[in-house]
């Protein structure tokens, strides 16, 4: 029974990994660009949730949406002020831009919120539920399920709607899309909004169930790299499977090897993937 509990717990955390990693993979698929500040977007989503709960009040639905909107706005602002200008520049500028941004956001958060761990005050989702003998915190269960639904929603948005087709058209061929009357700049800004928004709401979901500090962003961006490498660069559905697998591997290795080894196992998996299948486990060769 303990084993089942560990596995379910891992999958539920993995669902949140899947949600924020789908944001990273979307940007990679759209513009061949890696956002090193993506983990910091998740971290900011957590603090937005906290600030909303403390100063405005309201349930998970309110602060979840608030985190998504706040981060989406930030993502679009960052696209227009920074990313648009470096995207066709040298590799150094591309990597430095979001790497510097990550430092800026992380240490500003340290400065404002201090390095202490915090968690959301008790809310409607506190308490545990028993399902067939497996005890789970309600918060974890709800956060995990919502994350899966949102990730599938993002996948459907990209594959089944007109906006999604436009996004994919720009990803496929910028010039051709422009000739079809699509504005690539707007579509890329939208992709940044969606990507950061997904990270923000994933942060809010994570905040319901787990405590955090400003340093979590660094861990999350590396986990997102692992998930994206596993699921194939650019595939939202791939990152859903890969997120669940990563959460599972982390939970299992934390349980059987010890908590300090969980990140070592996951990062080791990333290096192994780069050697063996750089296109991703589910990616095309």
């Amino acid at each position, binding site marked *: 029974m303990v084993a089942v509990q560990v596995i379910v717990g891992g999958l539920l955390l993995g669902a949140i990994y899947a949600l924020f990693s789908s944001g990273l993979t979307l940007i990679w698929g759209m513009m061949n660009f890696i956002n*090193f500040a993506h983990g910091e977007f998740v971290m900011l989503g957590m603090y937005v949730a906290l600030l909303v709960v403390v100063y405005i009040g309201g349930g998970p639905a309110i602060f979840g949406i608030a985190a998504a909107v706040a981060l989406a706005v930030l993502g679009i602002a960052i696209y227009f002020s920074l990313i648009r200008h470096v995207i066709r520049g040298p590799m150094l500028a591309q990597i*430095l831009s979001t790497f510097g941004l990550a430092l800026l956001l992380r240490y500003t958060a340290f400065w404002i919120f201090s390095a202490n761990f915090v968690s959301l005050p008790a809310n409607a989702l506190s308490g545990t539920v028993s399902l067939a003998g497996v005890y789970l915190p309600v918060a974890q269960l709800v956060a995990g399920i919502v994350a899966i639904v949102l990730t599938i929603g993002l996948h459907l948005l990209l594959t089944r709607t007109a906006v999604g087709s436009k996004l994919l058209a720009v990803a496929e061929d910028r010039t051709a899309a422009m000739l079809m009357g699509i504005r690539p700049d707007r579509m890329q800004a939208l992709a940044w909004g969606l990507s950061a928004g997904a990270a923000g709401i994933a942060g809010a979901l994570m905040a319901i169930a787990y405590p955090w500090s400003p340093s979590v962003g660094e861990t999350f961006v590396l986990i997102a*790299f692992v998930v994206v490498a596993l699921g194939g660069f650019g595939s939202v559905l791939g990152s859903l499977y890969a997120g669940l697998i990563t959460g599972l591997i982390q939970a299992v290795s934390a349980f059987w090897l010890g908590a*300090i080894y969980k*990140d070592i196992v996951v990062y080791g998996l990333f290096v192994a993937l780069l050697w063996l299948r750089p296109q991703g486990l589910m990616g095309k060769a």
Partner: protein
Amino acid sequence: MKSSFPPYLRIVLLAAALLAFPLVFTGAFYRDIGVTFLLAAISASAWNIVGGYAGQVSVGHSMFFGVGAYAPLLLYTLFGWPPIAGIPLGIAIAIALAIVIGMPTFRLTGHYFSMATIAVAELIRIFVGTWDFVGAAIGLQGPARARGWWDLTFRSELPYYYIFLAVLGIVLATTAFIERRRFGFYLRAVKASERAARSLGVSVRRTKLQALALSAAFTSVAGSLYAAKTGFIDPDSGFGILVSVQMLIVAALGGAGMLFGPLLGAAILIPLQTATNTWFGGGGSGLTYILYGGIIVLIARFEPGGLLELWHRIRPRWSRRAHAA
């Protein structure tokens, strides 16, 4: 207007200024800044070989630095060997690491290399923190008192200053030598366009791998010097991400891919860092990194070539104006 004195004279003047610095500023405070400046310049110059010249942006160079810092203190702890004996071991492990990371990622675009470097550096940092053999989270210590000059443990800053200056000279001379050789042209060709370089017969992957191995070796030496100077190393000061950040920002601010770029970057950032830490006390280090993040973003957005390139661009305009006047 052509410069009034030839380039080699400028280098002689620069060398003379660096040699004279600790003799003019004899206070321990200034000498300490001098030593910190040299160490930052060495590691950033080492980073520059692969990050600047070859255009492969490593964000995890701390792994090479940490290996170089741990190796001497590990040999001292295990066998009582002088720390200097660990330098070749550090270089060997750093080159092995470079190959492990470079082999798979250099087949792909530059983003994969950047992601792999940060992931491996973090992997090693966490792993070393759990490994009792290398002191786990507490780290390792060097000789408390020198048994002879070969322990590289001095009371005064002066010997460190001149040892570091000599190593900086070696790193810069090697880089300058490479710049003029075929290998230097290969590096710049790879940076400008991999496809074009490949079509002209440059073995792109091998060139990048060689640049990374050389860069890793020099970075490892910088780590060994750091360990010899402080006599102490732990996972964060060896493998922490901020170690990589410092190399990156020093090189990028001064001018990545330019011989004296890292030197200029270190000359600006190290006094700045000392100042923020002094003004804001212990809490200053947080503000220092907010500032670093901001500077990195601004470089990326406005001046990816760094200050040296900016200087080369605006100087002709100035001298033309001076001519007209």
